[in-house]
């Protein structure tokens, strides 16, 4: 078999090795002996070889989140942050040692907290001490900490209970495995949501050959509309989600009628149309920023109750979100393969001219595809907004590149390719934070995009043909 490889194949495998080597070098570069930089307030923190985490969720004794409270970190390094809408706060620290976390004392009194100060010991690389979760309300249940070790009070001089190093007996390996399962789980959840975003984008590409750069903004739009529903109009969440999907579908219909259909009629090539989507993406992003500002908007304010499920900690909301994503994706697949319109869509995807000749109304199909695609994007925006505890004007734009990677990996224009691609990208992005710094985890997903193009440019499900 090897002997049969043509020169070209050999050249290609050399390039693959070169690409792989480059990625390994990048990954190695990513883990240098980091010089001590100051502690940093972050939205979410995952311990790596170069940083440790001190974080928690500020709740009062009845488990209501306390938002907007200034949390101060002192000790080896210092920083301040404010709790977000769900009471979460997190610091990423680089030096090992003792840290003290404190709150303004009036907050403690007003919310009936047991303490306004807690001291923890942090040690990088030690899996039970790389993440310290601080609670001020002295509730004893497991609080969704990822290390999976049980909570036990450590500091004796304060009454704050601190989840700490009871896990001496737990070997580093079992801790690594529990983080492994946790990241795998969150990767699958993220992948499902990414899949929901990408199927629509892929279908638009399949039927019109347009890679829509503004698809990310459709996702942001969904999340922001849900925010408008729950937080401004004070509607229930389900109604807000329906509003978001309806607005999303309407924008898809409008876009197709006002922009894309006239452009197709004037025979403007997909390349020029792609530049139009870039303009649209910019305009929409900053329209969102104009109306909603630059900060993250929380869709829900309640903090879900976490529970243990095998090696992973999760909560019902997350499972529910994943369930919704899965059901919608399955329904969408059934639509594509079971209904007349679905078959017509796949026919147009395959060969628009032939489909048109056999009596399919191509324009009608494209219109439906646009509506479905933007509606699914809006729904995924709602889901991801709840999952990530909020949506910002540029959330969708950040997702866009991951969507591109997913779609390319699965095969541009293939129906189920997007889902498989998304799951792979989601898992890789989340699992890569086990080995590379957390702020570089999207790099791995983007690197996959490049490697796929080297090895199999048509993607997993794409037909073997000359691409381009």
């Amino acid at each position, binding site marked *: 078999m090897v002997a049969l490889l043509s020169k070209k194949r050999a050249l290609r495998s050399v390039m693959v090795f*070169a690409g792989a080597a480059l990625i390994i070098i990048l990954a190695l570069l990513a883990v240098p002996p980091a010089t001590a930089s100051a502690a940093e307030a972050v939205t979410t923190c995952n311990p790596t070889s170069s940083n440790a985490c001190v974080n928690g969720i500020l709740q009062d004794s009845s488990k209501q989140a306390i938002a907007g409270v200034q949390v101060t970190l002192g000790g080896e390094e210092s920083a301040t942050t404010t709790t977000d809408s769900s009471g979460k706060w997190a610091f990423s620290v680089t030096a090992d040692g003792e840290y003290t976390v404190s709150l303004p004392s009036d907050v403690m009194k007003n919310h009936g907290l047991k303490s306004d100060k807690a001291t923890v010991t942090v040690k990088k690389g030690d899996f039970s001490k790389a993440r310290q979760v601080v609670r001020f309300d002295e509730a004893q249940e497991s609080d969704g900490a990822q290390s999976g070790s049980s909570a036990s009070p450590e500091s004796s001089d304060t009454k704050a209970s601190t989840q700490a190093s009871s896990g001496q007996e737990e070997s580093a390996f079992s801790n690594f495995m529990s983080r492994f399962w946790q990241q795998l789980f969150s990767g699958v959840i993220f992948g499902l949501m990414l899949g929901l975003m990408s199927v629509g984008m892929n279908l638009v590409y399949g039927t019109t050959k347009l890679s829509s750069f503004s698809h990310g903004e459709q996702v942001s739009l969904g999340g922001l509309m849900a925010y408008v529903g729950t937080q401004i109009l004070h509607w229930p969440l389900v109604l807000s989600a329906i509003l978001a999907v309806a607005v999303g579908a309407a924008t898809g219909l409008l876009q197709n009628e006002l922009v894309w259909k006239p452009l197709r009629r004037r025979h403007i090539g997909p390349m020029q149309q792609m530049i*139009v989507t870039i303009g649209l993406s*910019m305009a929409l992003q*900053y329209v969102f920023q104009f109306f909603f500002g630059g900060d993250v908007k929380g869709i829900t304010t309640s903090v879900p109750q976490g529970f243990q499920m095998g090696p992973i900690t999760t909560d019902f909301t997350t499972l529910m979100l994943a369930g919704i994503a899965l059901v919608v994706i399955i329904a969408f697949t059934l639509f594509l393969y079971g209904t007349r319109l679905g078959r017509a869509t796949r026919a147009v995807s395959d060969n628009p001219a032939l489909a048109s000749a056999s009596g399919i109304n191509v324009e009608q199909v494209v219109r439906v595809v646009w509506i479905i695609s933007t509606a699914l994007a809006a729904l995924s925006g709602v889901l991801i907004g709840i999952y990530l505890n909020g949506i910002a004007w540029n959330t969708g734009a950040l997702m866009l590149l991951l969507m591109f990677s997913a779609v390319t990996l699965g095969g541009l224009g293939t129906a189920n390719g997007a889902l498989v691609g998304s799951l792979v990208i989601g898992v890789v992005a989340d699992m890569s934070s086990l080995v590379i710094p957390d*702020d570089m985890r999207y790099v791995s997903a*983007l690197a996959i995009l490049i490697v796929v193009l080297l090895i199999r440019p048509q993607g997993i499900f794409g037909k073997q043909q000359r691409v*381009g």
Partner: protein
Amino acid sequence: MDLMTIFTNSFAQLIAPTTAAYVLAAIGLNIHFGMTGLMNMGQAGFMLLGAYGFAITQSMGWNLFASVLAALTLAAVYAVLLGIPTLKLGPDYLAMVTLASAEIIRIIGRSTSLTSITGGSGGISPQDFTTQFENLSPLPEGNSTILLWSYSNNIADSWWLRIVAWALVLIAVLLTWRWYRSPWGRVLKGIREDENVIRSLGKSVTKFKLQSLFLGGAFGALSGIIFVLPRSVQPDSLGRQVTFYVWTILLLGGAASILGPVLGSCLLWVLLTVVKESMREGISSNLISSNQIESLGWVIVGVALMCLVIFRPQGLIGDRRELAFNA
């Protein structure tokens, strides 16, 4: 008095080094897109790489010209790495990969684990890399005022930087003018219009595309250096938006025209500043905050980009016949 401020600030953009940096980036993109038909959606990646290559080697104490060479070398290596997997594929793939790679560079650059080299998201501050460039200036110390505008002679956002930046623009324009009429340029234009024809003439299309990608990227790297000299190297200031600005500039001036990038950049920045400044002066800040005015500026650029492609794809001074892309 207010009108005068608006006028002065807006027309200061005509000679600003940042405008020149965008001209250089757009000239690079013009080689990619206008001449060869390559959809490079990551020009900011080339710029950021150039900026890092220059600033990091400068802070290590390299010679000024060695640093510029280092920036150009980085751009060349990057162009080859990008080109090998994508140039044989369709334009969509090149667009996605360039966009993704530019993001990779930015994310790696701002990562906290590389703080010792790149300065993380805080970046590299100007005193670390501008000294040699400022010392090279033949101008005397102090400030000068020409017509309405007053700048320092040598330091930071200076007259010296303006002279160098626009001299580079002049050289770049002359070079592209020469290349455009050369046999080499005609091959590139042939690739843009129908690469199969060029292939049938026995030319290696991939090789020419790679050369084009490198040359355009080199201008991108130079533009990155000019872009960071009056400020600091900040990975987030050379993000995706910069690429989109460069595209708007190129399409506004006219893709595949020699002076299109110059015209596009000057016009875009003057107009954008006029609009923003008059909104700041005219609308009370209770009604629209200054952040919102920034956002509105972006919305205008986005809508302008859409309208240009839809209604006047050849831009202001482009030639419609030059836009027969192989797509």
